């Protein structure tokens, strides 16, 4: 392949950015779900 370092750098930087955004979104979603479930459980125990 001609200009391989430029092609590899393009794909590499894109892969890193997409991976970071994906992991960040998944972790944030998981944290938000857990937090809400905890608060719901707390509310249920306090209303009993």
């Amino acid at each position, binding site marked *: 392949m*001609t200009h391989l370092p430029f*092609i590899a750098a*393009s794909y590499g930087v894109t892969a890193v950015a*997409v991976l970071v955004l994906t992991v960040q*979104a998944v972790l944030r*979603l998981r944290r*938000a779900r857990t937090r*809400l479930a905890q608060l719901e459980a*707390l509310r249920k125990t306090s209303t009993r």
Partner: protein
Amino acid sequence: MSALPQSAVSPPQRGGLLHRFANPGRFLRLARWLTPLLGWISAVALVAGIIWGLFFSPADWQQGDTVRIMYIHVPMAILASAGYFALAICGVLTLVWKHPLADLAAVEIGPVGATATALCLATGSLWGKPMWGAWWVWDARLTSMLVLFFLYLGHIALIRAFDDPQRGYRAAAILAIAGSVDLPIIKFSVNWWNTLHQPDSITLTGAPTMSMSMLAPLMVCMIGFSCGFGALVSARLTAAILESRARQMMTRRIAEREEAA
């Protein structure tokens, strides 16, 4: 995807089309199946499109293999503009209808759109160096794209800059609408001015000027990145709604405790 907590999903409400989609509970029910669907379509299309583009599509007769950067650069450029257009639509919905979901959507679209713009600029630069002999030129297309990146950064900063979130949403909405002037400039810059950047190879009105053997993997990559963009925004928006619900529950709990005390 696991089931959402009960407090996250409010009962369906009746109303006009706009207000139906202003209901966060309705969005959460939609996102529960839409986010993983978009994510899987994106993953499959990106693997197929990138392998096709890197190993099976032909090299360009002038640019050689460097043309393979196109399979990332072009989708990122289109998504950067589309993302900002979505921000402008959210801005109109915020200012005219005070659409609560549009406010949260604007907060979440900004960073994803800014990343697409940064990737468009970075891959463009990596394509430009071997082809033009320069990492950067102050060409109309490149400069208007850089302006779009700064508009995204301004939007991200402005929407989070106020203690009262409503003020941030309104200020950022005005910036998004005013900044959308840059979108036609980006699109038509290669026609209006004599630029180093090549003219568009794909237009809505004319036949594409590139070979089908290159256009097909480009379209597959375009579908992959677009679905990925949608999945990311949908996941971030879901998280934002759940965080907002958790904050409301905490505030209510504190208020109840204070009342009891």
